[in-house]
């Protein structure tokens, strides 16, 4: 049984004008456990708090109830007061008799009666409160960034600049990501490589950044502040420390059948290759599926020609175990495959290309050295048709339901650049809607239409077919003119929908970070916490959270970095003590709670249980208090009631219900 003190606040006249505070104090005095009750003009004032403190001492109170304003206002204040007077801050309950009572009721009798009932409920709850202590856990001052695109690089740089160690894990042989493949960027038309490569170099040279390229995250354990991560460093068969990046090997490789991924397969590369000239690290990698040495055991020309003896066919995958305080997901995006869109003829006609391929074709470092030529016969196309929303905003189930966000703008960019470089080229764009909500976006689009004379056609393309004479016939509808039209084109460019990178799902599972049905990571709060995952210590940067253009990605990358820096700046993490707790004597280990936990805070352990009757080793739920946020979803999923929420226990809520329902008219 507690010794409870009740403190009824007048809040000046805010409460006292409609609630008979003396009567409330008097009535609550006879509630079970209450040994002291008082009223005062302003409980939150220093005098009011002193009143509480001295009552705690004089009456050896173990719990207090403050009947006052909303707990959202002053709960923290009174908790501090209690704590200063030597009782646990969680032995405080607030009865909200201002917002929920005096301010909304006019009749004194009604309001007083209600205030008494609210006070009773609070007393009933405090009777069952137990002292709670905030958990503490140390923070490892190191961050992991998964993904080495612009998002990952920017996040890593910002964190590193703040003085914390950062590791970047990139599954490809080089960092840079999708941005490195781009030609120009909208709406400013500055060169992507020119702004990205310095950042790549900076990341590589930063003393606080370690790059793990050609590497993947293998396993994640632990929780916020204390993640244990295993990283697989895939064998490149080239010793990074010895290699000077001279490129001798790549030129000597006799196999030329490899498709150059960086150029979207538009040209070839050797089995040992450096993805592109500015790759970081500038170290080749061997494609074992292509390499003659790996396939037949004979060859080894690269090894023989390497001046620094860096080629090593016996290299094995390496594993690195590292501890991190925070993890940033920056896995980026990819574009969908187009097998569901046979009507566009992508797999049939070489001259039907995706926008990303077009990007490479336009690029000075691309397969055609920046000269626009079509893949089939390397002739310069005279008529180009761009098709937007290929797989985006698609509710048929073939593609993605969401808008890929960037296509409108890059298509306008492509159209504009084409017209600028090759004014004799006719450019058509089929669109459903043109979406340009960004700084200078609409102006950019209008320039394409007005200044560069790009033909925008609102409508869909129904079919792309070959006219037998080397032309692509694009049949579509013009919804504004309300007519069917067929355009004889030399080249068709498809704005294929974006999708989350395929590594995201596996990673999401490892991180117990929730994802939406499109495999984009879910943010902790869509408005208020857009760069945090609901899983504490996991942050989101860039496209992995949802479609974004470069400036948005960089902005979010910086925001994620700021959050990480905020976390790493702490030496210890204090955790909310109102978290779930599993009673191992009752827990059946059924895993139902784990399935509803949005934070991955519940794990299971074979535990010795002994309830005096049964002694056995049993699978029992364990709550990681540093990760649990205290929502209580698990408590209802648990049929046996083994899972309870501290601070809001089943018994406490029952007691509140009972107190409110208790008859009074005696």
């Amino acid at each position: 049984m507690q010794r409870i003190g009740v403190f009824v606040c007048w809040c000046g006249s805010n409460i006292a004008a409609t609630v008979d505070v003396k009567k409330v104090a008097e009535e609550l005095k006879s509630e079970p456990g209450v040994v002291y009750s008082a009223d005062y003009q302003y409980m939150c004032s220093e005098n009011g708090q002193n009143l509480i403190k001295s009552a705690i001492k004089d009456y050896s109170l173990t719990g207090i109830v403050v009947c006052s304003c909303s707990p959202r206002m002053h709960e923290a204040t009174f908790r501090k007061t209690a704590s200063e007077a030597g009782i646990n801050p969680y032995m405080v309950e607030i009865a909200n008799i201002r917002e929920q009572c005096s301010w909304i009721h006019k009749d004194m009798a009604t309001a007083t009666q209600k205030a008494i009932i609210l006070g009773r409920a609070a007393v009933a709850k405090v009777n069952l409160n137990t002292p709670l202590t905030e958990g503490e856990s140390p923070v490892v001052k190191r961050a992991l960034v998964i993904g080495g695109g612009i998002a990952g690089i920017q996040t890593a740089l910002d964190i590193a600049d703040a003085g914390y160690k950062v590791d970047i894990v990139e599954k490809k042989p080089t960092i840079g990501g999708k941005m490195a493949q781009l030609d120009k960027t909208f709406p400013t038309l500055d060169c992507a490589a020119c702004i990205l490569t310095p950042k790549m170099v900076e990341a590589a040279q930063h003393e606080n950044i370690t790059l793990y390229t050609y590497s993947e995250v293998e396993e994640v354990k632990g929780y916020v502040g204390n993640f244990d991560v295993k990283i697989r460093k895939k064998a490149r068969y080239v010793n990074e420390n010895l290699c000077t990046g001279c490129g001798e090997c790549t030129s000597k490789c006799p196999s030329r059948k490899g498709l150059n991924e960086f150029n979207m397969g538009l040209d070839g590369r050797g089995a040992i290759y450096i993805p592109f000239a500015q790759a970081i690290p500038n170290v080749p990698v061997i494609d074992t599926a292509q390499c003659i040495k790996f396939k037949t055991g004979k060859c080894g020309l690269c090894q023989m020609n390497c001046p620094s003896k860096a080629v090593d066919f016996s290299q094995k995958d390496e594993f690195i175990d590292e501890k991190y305080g925070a993890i940033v997901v920056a896995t980026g995006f990819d574009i969908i495959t187009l097998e569901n869109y046979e009507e566009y003829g992508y797999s049939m006609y070489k001259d039907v290309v995706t926008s990303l391929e077009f990007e490479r074709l336009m690029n000075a470092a691309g397969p055609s050295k920046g000269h626009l030529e079509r893949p089939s016969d390397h002739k310069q196309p005279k008529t180009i048709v761009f098709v937007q929303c290929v797989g985006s905003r698609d509710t048929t189930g073939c593609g993605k339901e969401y808008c890929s966000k960037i296509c409108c703008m890059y298509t306008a960019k492509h159209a504009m650049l084409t017209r600028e470089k090759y004014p004799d080229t006719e450019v058509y764009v089929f669109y459903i809607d043109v979406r340009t909500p960004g700084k200078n976006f609409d102006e950019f689009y209008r320039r394409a239409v007005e200044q560069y004379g790009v033909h925008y056609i609102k409508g869909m393309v129904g079919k792309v077919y070959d006219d037998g004479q080397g032309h692509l016939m694009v049949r579509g509808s013009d919804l504004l003119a309300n007519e069917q039209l067929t355009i004889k084109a030399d080249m068709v460019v498809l704005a294929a929908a974006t999708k989350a990178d395929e590594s995201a799902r596996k990673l999401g599972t490892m991180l117990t970070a929730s994802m939406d049905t499109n495999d984009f990571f879910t943010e902790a709060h869509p408005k208020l916490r857009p760069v945090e995952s609901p899983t504490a210590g996991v942050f989101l940067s860039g496209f992995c959270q949802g479609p974004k253009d470069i400036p948005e990605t960089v902005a979010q990358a910086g925001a994620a970095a700021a959050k990480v820096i905020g976390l790493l700046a702490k030496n210890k993490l204090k955790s909310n003590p109102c978290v779930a707790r599993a009673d191992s004597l009752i827990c059946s280990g059924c895993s139902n709670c784990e399935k509803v936990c949005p934070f991955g805070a519940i794990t299971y352990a074979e535990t010795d249980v002994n309830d005096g009757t049964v002694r056995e080793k049993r699978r029992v739920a364990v709550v990681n208090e540093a990760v649990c946020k205290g929502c209580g979803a698990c408590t209802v999923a648990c049929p046996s009631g083994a899972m309870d929420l501290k601070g809001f226990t089943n018994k406490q809520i029952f007691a509140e219900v009972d107190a409110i329902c208790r008859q009074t008219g005696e």
Partner: protein
Amino acid sequence: MQTDRGVTAEKEFQPKIIAFCCNWCSYAGADLAGSGRLSYSADVKIIRVPCSCRINPMFILRAFQKGADGVILAGCHPGDCHYSTGNYFTRRRMTLLFSMLDYMGIEKERTRVEWISAAEGAKFSATMNEFAGEIKKLGRSKRLGDLRCR
């Protein structure tokens, strides 16, 4: 073989209504209703829970047992849950619970779920008034109640 001890003098019927409010949206909505002086029925008493997903069907049944005439749950709008997914679970749980109550012939109007954000003080007040009015019309909960507590 039970004894009926439920003899109470009927005054004007004053329903007992419990509103479980999630801390982040609906409780804040109630606060906003308060600071906006948007009056609602005094028969409604609020119990604060961290998230609507904390509400166990047993709490609702317990309220009816102890004499409540109506129980309303208020939480963040789907998609806006402070804990990201809590109210999605609430939605399923309560849909199924209410469906069962209905199937057993217990007036479905006595239970309700509403999504009320922290900005919707007016909605909070209007919802509570409307609910209280409905319960008043329905009268005392007889089908789901414990005579001992009357």
